[in-house]
């Protein structure tokens, strides 16, 4: 049940691999990192490049979770 978590743009953190079964569990794990807390509050989440809006979203082995902080193109 290993998932990869990627932190995009200004979060500036290398990808990590974790054993978690849902976004709920992932949230609890990432919250232990104080530097990540502000990003958890303002980032959107994609799993395998699909935007997700449900914390109960299940994760399976090999899933790639991506955190997308606030954007500004142009």
């Amino acid at each position: 049940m290993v998932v990869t978590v990627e932190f995009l743009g200004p979060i500036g953190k290398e990808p990590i691999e974790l054993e978690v079964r849902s976004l709920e569990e992932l949230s609890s794990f990432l919250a232990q990192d104080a530097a990540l807390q502000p990003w958890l509050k303002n980032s959107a989440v994609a799993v395998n490049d699909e935007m997700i809006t449900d914390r109960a979203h299940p994760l399976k082995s090999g899933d790639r979770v991506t955190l997308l902080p606030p954007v500004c193109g142009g």
Partner: protein
Amino acid sequence: MLEIYDGPLEVPRILERWYGVQRRRNFGAFIPFVGTVRDEGGIEGLSFDLYRPLLERWFNHWQEQAAKRGAEVAMAHSCGDVPLFESSYIAAVSSPKRRVALELIDRFVEDFKANAPIWKYDLRGGERIYAADRSQPLCGSGLLG
């Protein structure tokens, strides 16, 4: 057409190429928008990160929406550093007649600002500083917070 370039865009070359293609395809209207880095707040330039898989998905969705109205969208964007007075963004809409292109260019550029997965940084004193105050959270943000 979604084109990503390292550094500033060569605007005349890109527009000349797009224009050359689109006018021969019987589009009567071609409306480009060019975004240029302004000298404000003491910055030396801007810098960009982008996430290509979701940018392509966002762009393809727009291309499908435009096609329903007989139109096409095109976009070019910079990755990395772009100095003052250089350009980092081109959006363009082609349509058979002007009205559709005029409407779509406004919506296309505004939706780009709100939803394209691109991150902007100010360049100051050789440092890259995230433009947090000008950035917008994507839909569904805070899911893990």
